[in-house]
């Protein structure tokens, strides 16, 4: 059984083709990296896998749900996504941000406090997000993923702007996800850095995924 199954997935923005026929299978327990230069469509591919964007044509199935179909809404809570920018609300403290996401996810706010501790932010938890450094904000975003325990973890440029300790958190998070039977998909322009964090690296070129 696959966690992600893409067959001839094509996606256009207006008349501009971004994905031109992506075939990809990702199985439970796998950590897969997709490398490619800026503008190659890596983030777009990740948004299709996250069920946030429907392909123009082709078949995309994630966690047994067809992307673009009504079942996709039901599996979204099993997907964790960290994008280019941390999804924090600037005027809220890091703790308030995490509590907000915990409540929306139906979790106990103690989980949020625990996650902040795990990423080493307990001392800065009551600072507003807008005055925190980018590294701290990225850590807080990782704390959100630690807290929600996704089955499919999607990381966009996960190691950008992170120090060695924070990269170790990313590594621990992805190992925990795969050991629980989930999968990790990471995209980055930095193939060498990504090779340290995943089991196999694919390349996105001309809108297609290649080994």
């Amino acid at each position, binding site marked *: 059984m696959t966690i992600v199954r893409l067959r001839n997935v094509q996606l256009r923005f207006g008349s501009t083709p971004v994905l031109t026929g992506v075939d990809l299978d990702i199985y439970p327990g796998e950590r897969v990296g997709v490398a490619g230069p800026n503008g190659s469509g890596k983030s777009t591919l990740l948004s299709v896998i996250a069920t946030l964007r429907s392909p123009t044509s082709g078949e995309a199935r994630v966690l047994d749900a067809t992307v673009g179909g009504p079942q996709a809404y039901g599996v979204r*809570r099993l997907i964790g996504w960290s994008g*280019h920018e941390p999804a924090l609300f600037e005027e809220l403290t890091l703790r308030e941000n995490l509590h907000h*996401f915990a409540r*929306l996810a139906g979790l106990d706010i103690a989980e949020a406090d625990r996650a902040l501790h795990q990423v080493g932010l307990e001392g800065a938890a009551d600072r507003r997000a807008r005055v925190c450094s980018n590294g701290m904000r990225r850590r807080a975003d990782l704390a959100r993923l630690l807290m929600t325990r996704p089955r499919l973890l999607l990381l966009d440029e996960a190691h950008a702007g992170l120090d060695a300790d924070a990269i170790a958190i990313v590594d621990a998070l992805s190992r925990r996800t795969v050991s629980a039977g989930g999968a990790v998909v990471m995209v980055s322009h930095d193939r060498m850095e990504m090779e340290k964090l995943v089991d196999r690296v694919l390349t996105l070129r001309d809108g297609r995924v290649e080994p």
Partner: protein
Amino acid sequence: MNFGRQVAEFCRRDLLTERRAGEVISIVTPFGAVALMSFPLAFGIDSALISRVGPAVFWVVVFLFTMQIALRHSAAERPHQRAVIALLGVDPFARLMGRTLAAAVLILVFMAVLFPAMILFYSPDLPEAWPLALVPGVLAGIGLAQVGTLAAEITAGLRTRTTLAPLIVAPLAVPLLIAGSQALESLASGGSILPWTVLVVATDLALAVIGAAIARPLEEASL
């Protein structure tokens, strides 16, 4: 998390953000008061005219500035934040309702500050039963919050957002503007506020139904 708690959580977050950023209190409200104050200056010394148009000017200022409140307030959520919230499995209508509720609180605060200012600047001849007009007035404020939030959601991420949003708002807000202003006029002429209250309740309900129907497609389009 159930629907009601999700609504409350979004409302709480938005109000906390507003308390910290202070956009409505420190920026929009003073401008609204200045707009209200400038009409009597433009009318000159005709105090009878000023007294007669006071409530109508109040509603025009409320209409224009509450749209600013609702649009600014709704723009505070960026696409990647929407994506993360969608991935938490949140009901899009709960998100829309929560944001509308927060906008309604801000709009009602704005109205509560401007109403005494209108009495001060215009000395309107208010009927004895004027507090009854608060019912359609508050409901119209809630309706304006719904219109503003819906317009902000529909235009989210569009380059033409600032042009398009007022064009969406104007026709939807007309019944609210009419009901809000005519309720007081009706009381002054010895009439009833019932037809205006019915109009504003019907508009609020229609907007809620529209919101429920389009919340999901709007969210999908904005991701």
